[in-house]
């Protein structure tokens, strides 16, 4: 009885043993004064800082700023990428007009244009949203375009010979067929959005998690710096989980998502 209970739960517990031990060692080392607070604050201090900022409401102000920038930048960039990808994927003319330009622009690292963007927009919201949009447009564009162009021509021929054409063909065959590839682009773009946002907020911002971290560094508040890093990790993870749920729902039919 007890053995099967152990066996059942061991698989779930074992992966957490190492992080738990590290956390404990970290706390002990800090409490005993082996770890300088300036290098790494104790986990309890980080927790206390989180509580303090939650109570004062600062935490949510900054979280909201960051989330809003990421969301609006992503919506603009991914939306534009999807639209251009559909145009280039569906029409030879669209491909001729857009593809070369986008392939050239995509080689510019988004953060390389940061100085220029600051010159254009200053350090206000527009700059960050623009950077995130710029970074997320290309992965979504490329994967949408590629997803449509690599559709199985045999399926398209079959659908047409069964009288499915025009809008119905797009809705029933082209879009669902390209969706796995589009969602790969979306997940990749989400990762990029966070990276760009972290850098942009750390360098030039007056709110947001990056600003929280940069500001805390000025005052040697290492516990808030660590808290900011954890917040980024949590937000990134939350968005990734959301994207995965979306995939699981929309790609139920796909062999990789079929329940056994």
């Amino acid at each position: 009885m007890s053995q099967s209970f152990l066996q059942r739960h061991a698989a779930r517990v074992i992966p957490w043993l190492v992080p738990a031990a590290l956390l404990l060692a970290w706390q002990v080392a800090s409490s005993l004064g082996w770890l300088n607070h300036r290098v790494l604050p104790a986990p309890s201090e980080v927790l206390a800082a989180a509580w303090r900022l939650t109570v004062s409401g600062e935490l949510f102000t900054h979280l909201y700023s960051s989330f809003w920038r990421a969301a609006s930048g992503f919506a603009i960039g991914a939306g534009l990428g999807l639209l251009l990808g559909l145009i280039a994927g569906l029409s030879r003319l669209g491909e001729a007009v857009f593809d070369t330009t986008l392939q050239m622009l995509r080689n510019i690292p988004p953060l390389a244009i940061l100085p220029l963007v600051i010159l254009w927009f200053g350090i206000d919201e527009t700059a960050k949203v623009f950077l995130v949009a710029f970074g997320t447009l290309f992965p979504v564009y490329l994967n949408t375009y590629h997803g449509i162009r690599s559709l199985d021509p045999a399926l398209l021929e079959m659908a047409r010979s069964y009288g499915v054409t025009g809008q119905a063909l797009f809705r029933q065959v082209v879009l669902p067929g390209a969706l796995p590839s589009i969602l790969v682009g979306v997940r990749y773009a989400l990762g990029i959005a966070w990276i760009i946002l972290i850098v942009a907020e750390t360098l030039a911002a007056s709110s947001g998690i990056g600003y929280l971290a940069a500001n805390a560094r000025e005052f040697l508040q290492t516990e808030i710096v660590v808290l900011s890093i954890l917040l980024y990790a949590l937000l990134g993870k939350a968005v990734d989980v959301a994207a995965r749920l979306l995939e699981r729902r929309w790609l139920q039919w796909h062999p990789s998502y079929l329940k056994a």
Partner: protein
Amino acid sequence: MKRENFTLAGAIHLQGLQRRFGTRTVLDGLNLDIAQGEFVAIVGRSGCGKSTLLRLLAGLDAPDGGRLQQPAGQTVRVMFQDARLLPWKTVLDNVALGLAGADARQRARDALAEVGLADRAGEWPVRLSGGQRQRVALARALVHQPQLLLLDEPLGALDALTRLEMQALIERLWLAHAPTTVLVTHDVSEAVALADRVVLVEEGRVALDVRIDLPRPRQHGDTRFVAFEQHILQRVLQGPAYTGQLPAEPVQPYRFNQLNWAL
């Protein structure tokens, strides 16, 4: 070349049909008439042009010369060798593809029941076996009640047992719905089992046109069946040099072979 309207009920006339790919002539003046409701099997070696002929009949490809007369406005449906089911639609929605009207799903459900897969309606196509996928593809073709049904080596990828089951199913549904049917196959036995006529295409022309007058359902071991099969097969293998004749139908009070078979 234009597709011409034809007023004589339901028949298909191909005259001097030509199709070239680059410098290669695949169909070279092919003549063939197919009566309404007839089941014609087209056999031949790979690359003889039989699949090209089917694609021309389906309107998936256009001839370079000759005449192709089909009834105007007829519904043509193709069943492909690979089932070509849309993986992101359920079995039922695959059958309902291209159907319009409020009763579309009910009609699709009925068609699925006809091929014995009513209980798999909500399943994703990847979950089905090769034989089941072809049954779904057959239901999807028949639900449109086509006047012309084109089968492009639909059983080529199936194992021997499933093939026989599918042959019986195709025959049963053909008898029930009576569409003009053209089956392309490289299996002579399958052609003799199913078709009213077996047409051998060789170097882009009709080289042999045999009427199979066996009663249905046909027995693969029947002497007449074997005679037909051998006659066509030898002609395929030996080419124009073959001079064998089909033996005349033996006069028999009853069929020895079926008796033997039962024992």
